[in-house]
C-alpha cells in the first residue's frame, strides 16, 4: 500500500470513529431530554403521556398530606390558574414548603395524578426555580420579584 493510500485510510477510519461517537452522543441526548410543562399545559393535555417530564409552580397552601408510612406525600402544584395533584414517595428536600416554588420530575398517570420520581431540592429558601416562575408568568400571575429576589437583593 502506498503511504498516501494508507494515510487516506487512517483519515477515513478516524472520521468513522468520530461519526460513531457523535451519533452515540446525539442519540443519548435525544432520548434523555426532559421537557418542562406548566400545570395549565398539563391540564390541557399538552404534556406527553408516555414520557417523563417536569412540572413546576407553587406548592398549593394546605394541600400537603402524608400517608401513614411517613414517606408517601401528596400535594398539589399550582400556577394559580390550574392545579395538578402530585404524589411522591421518599424524603423531601429541606426547602420544600407550602406556598413555595417547586419543580418535580416524573410521569402523569391515567388518573391525572403526577407521579414524581424526583422533587428538586433547591439551595435557598428565597430562591424561585426559574421553571416555577415561568409557569406563574404564563398563567398571568407573575410573582413579585422582590419576594423571590434571593439572597443578592439589596435590603
Amino acid at each position, binding site marked *: 500500500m502506498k503511504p498516501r493510500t494508507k494515510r487516506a485510510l487512517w483519515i477515513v477510519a478516524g472520521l468513522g470513529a468520530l461519526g460513531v461517537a457523535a451519533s452515540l452522543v446525539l442519540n443519548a441526548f435525544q432520548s*434523555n431530554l426532559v421537557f418542562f410543562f406548566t400545570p395549565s399545559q398539563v391540564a390541557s393535555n399538552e404534556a406527553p403521556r408516555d414520557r417523563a417530564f417536569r412540572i413546576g409552580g407553587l406548592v398549593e397552601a394546605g394541600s400537603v398530606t402524608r400517608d401513614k408510612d411517613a414517606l408517601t406525600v401528596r400535594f398539589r402544584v399550582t400556577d394559580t390558574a390550574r392545579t395538578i395533584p402530585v404524589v411522591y*414517595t421518599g424524603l423531601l428536600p429541606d426547602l420544600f414548603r407550602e406556598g413555595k416554588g417547586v419543580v418535580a420530575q416524573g410521569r402523569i398517570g391515567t388518573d391525572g395524578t403526577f407521579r414524581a420520581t424526583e422533587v428538586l431540592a433547591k439551595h435557598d429558601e428565597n430562591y424561585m426555580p426559574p421553571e416555577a416562575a415561568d409557569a406563574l408568568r404564563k398563567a398571568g400571575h407573575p410573582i413579585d420579584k422582590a419576594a423571590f429576589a434571593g439572597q443578592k437583593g439589596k435590603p
Partner: protein
Amino acid sequence: MIPELGHFALIVAAALAVAQSALALTGAATGRASLMATARPVAVGLFVFVAAAFAALAYSFVSNDFSVLNVASHSNSQLPAHYRFAATWGSHEGSILLWVVMLSAWSFAVSILSRHLPERFVARVLGVLGVIAAGFLFFILLTSNPFERLIPAAEEGRDLNPLLQDPGMVIHPPMLYMGYVGFSVAFAFAIAALLEGRLDAAWARWSRPWTTAAWCFLTIGIALGSGWAYYELGWGGWWFWDPVENASFMPWLAGTALVHSLAVTEKRGTFRSWTVLLAIVAFSLSLVGTFLVRSGVLTSVHAFATDPRRGIYILVFLFFVVGGALALFAWRAPRVGLGAGFSAVSRESMLLANNVLLIVAMGAVLLGTLYPLFLDALNLGKVSVGPPYFEAVFVPLMTPALFLMAIGPLASWKRVALPDLWTRLRWALAISVVTALVAPLALGRWSPGVAFGLWLALWIAAATLAHALQRFSNASQRGFAAKIAAQPLAWYGMMLAHLGVAAFIVGVTLVKSFEAERELRMAPGDRAAVAGYEFTFKGTREIAGPNYTSVQGEFDVRREGASHSTVMLPEKRVYHASGQTMTEAAIDTGFTGDLYVSLGEPVENGAWGVRLYRKPFVDWIWGGCFLMALGGFLALADRRYRARSREASAELAGAATGRA
C-alpha cells in the same frame, strides 16, 4: 475606612494591570528592554495591591462591619470566626475578588520563577496575564464592587447561606480557583509562544509544570466539591451532572488532554498546534465556567448574580479573549510546522486517541450543559438534560481511553511492535481478567457491569505495576534500592496518577453496583437492616449550636452478628438568622465503605422519616482523585523542570515542593 482603602487598592491594582499589559507587550513587540523590564516589578505590585484589597474585605467580614453591604448580606455576628472569614468568598463579589487574587498570585509566581526564560518571552507571558487581570478588575470595579457601603449600617447581617457553613466550603473555592485560574498561565504561555512564533520543545518544557500544577489544584477542587455535596446535601450522591459541576469538569477534561499532549510536544516536538489549541481551550472553558456560574444564567447555590450587566460584561470579555486567541492561532499556527512522524501504533498515537476521546467527552458535556440554556434564551421552551445522558455518553467514550491508558506508558515513542507489547502485558491481562471475573462473586453478586468496571481498574493497576517492575529490572544500577532511586520523579508521578484513576474506577463501580438504600419511618426503638448492618433508632434530642438549634437523632449501628456498635448522630438544623432548615447527615467512614444516615421529616409520636445507606468503597472515588493530584505534584518536583542556572534551579525546586 478599611473598606475605602480596600477599594482604593483595587483601583491601583486595575491601573497596574493595565500598565503591566501595555508596557510589557509594547516592550516585547518593539524590543525595548527597559519596557520589558517593568513586567516583573509591576506583577509583584499587582499582587500586593490585590492581596491588600482581599485582606481589607476579609477584615470587614471578620470584624462584623455591617456598614459594608456585602458583609451585611452574607455574614452574621453569630457566625463562627472561621466561617466569617470564608464568607469573604461566599458572595458573588467576594468570589470574583478571590479569582483575581489567584490570578495575581499565579502572575507573581511566574515573575519570580522565570529567571531562566528569555526576557521577551516572560514580558509577553506577564503582559497576557495582565490583560486578563485588567479585565476582571474592571469587572469588579464597574459591576461588582465588594466594598459598597450600606448607609445607614445594618444592625445585623443576613447570614451566610447555611449550606456554605461548612469546613468544605472554606477550602473548596480556593482550590478550585487555583486550578481554574492556573490554566491562565498555560494560556499566557501559549499566546506568548504564538506571538513569538516560537513553539518548540523548550516552550513545552517551560509550560508543563505550570499546567500540571493547575491541573492538580483543579482535581483537588473538584474532588472537594463532590465530597461536600455528598455529606452536605443529605442524599448521598457524589456527582449530579449539575451545570455548575460541569462548568468545572469541562476545563478538567481539556486540561487532562493538555497535560498529555504537552508531554508529546516536549519529548517529540509533535502535536504543537494541537497543544497550543488545547491550552487556549482549557482556559476558555475556565472563563465559560465563570460566565455560567457568575452570570446568573444558571440558578443554584453558586449563582448569586442576576444583574444582567455582569453577564454581558463577562460575555463580551469572553468573546474578546477567546476570539482574539483563536484568531491569533489561526493566523500563526500554520507557521508552526509539523514535528517528527510516528507510526500507527506508538505512544504518540495512543496519546492522540486519549486526547480525541477526552475532547469528544468534553464536547458532549458542553452540549448537555449549554443546549438547555440556548433553547431557553431563544424562548423555545424549557428542557433539562439529566444524568442518564451524561452516563450514557461517558462510559463508552472513556472505556477505550482507560484501556489505552494502561498500555500507553509501556509503548515506546515513534513505533512499537505489537508482539512485544503482548509479551510485556499478557500477565497483566490474564491476572486482571481472572480477578475481575471472580471478585464480584466475593462481593456478593456477579453482574457484567461490575466485572467490566473492576476489570478496567485492575487492568490499569496490573499494567502499571508490570511496567514498573520491568523498568526496575531493566535499570542499569546495582541493587534494587538504587534502581528505584534512579527513576525520575515525573515517572513516579505518572504511575501514581494512573493508579489513582484505577482507584477512582473501583469506587465508582462498586458504589454504583452495591450501594444499598432504605427510606423508612422509624419510631424510637425501631430497628432496620441495610446490607448486613442493623440500625437502631434511639430517639432525638435538642442541642444548641453557635448560630443554630438542632434536633439530633441517635442511631446505634452494628454489623449483623458483631457485638460492638457505633453511635451515629445525624442532625436537622434550623439556623437562627435565616430560619433555614439544613439536614446534616451522619457518616461512618471506612476503607471498604461508608454508613450514611440522614433525618427526613418528623411524624407523630417522635417517629421520623429516615434515610439509611450503605455506600461500599465510596471514599475510593475521592481517594483516587487525591492520588491523581499527588502524582501531579510529584511530577512537578522532577529535576528536569529545574532551571539551567543554579540560582533559578534552587528557586524552582523550592516552589515546586512549596506548592505541593
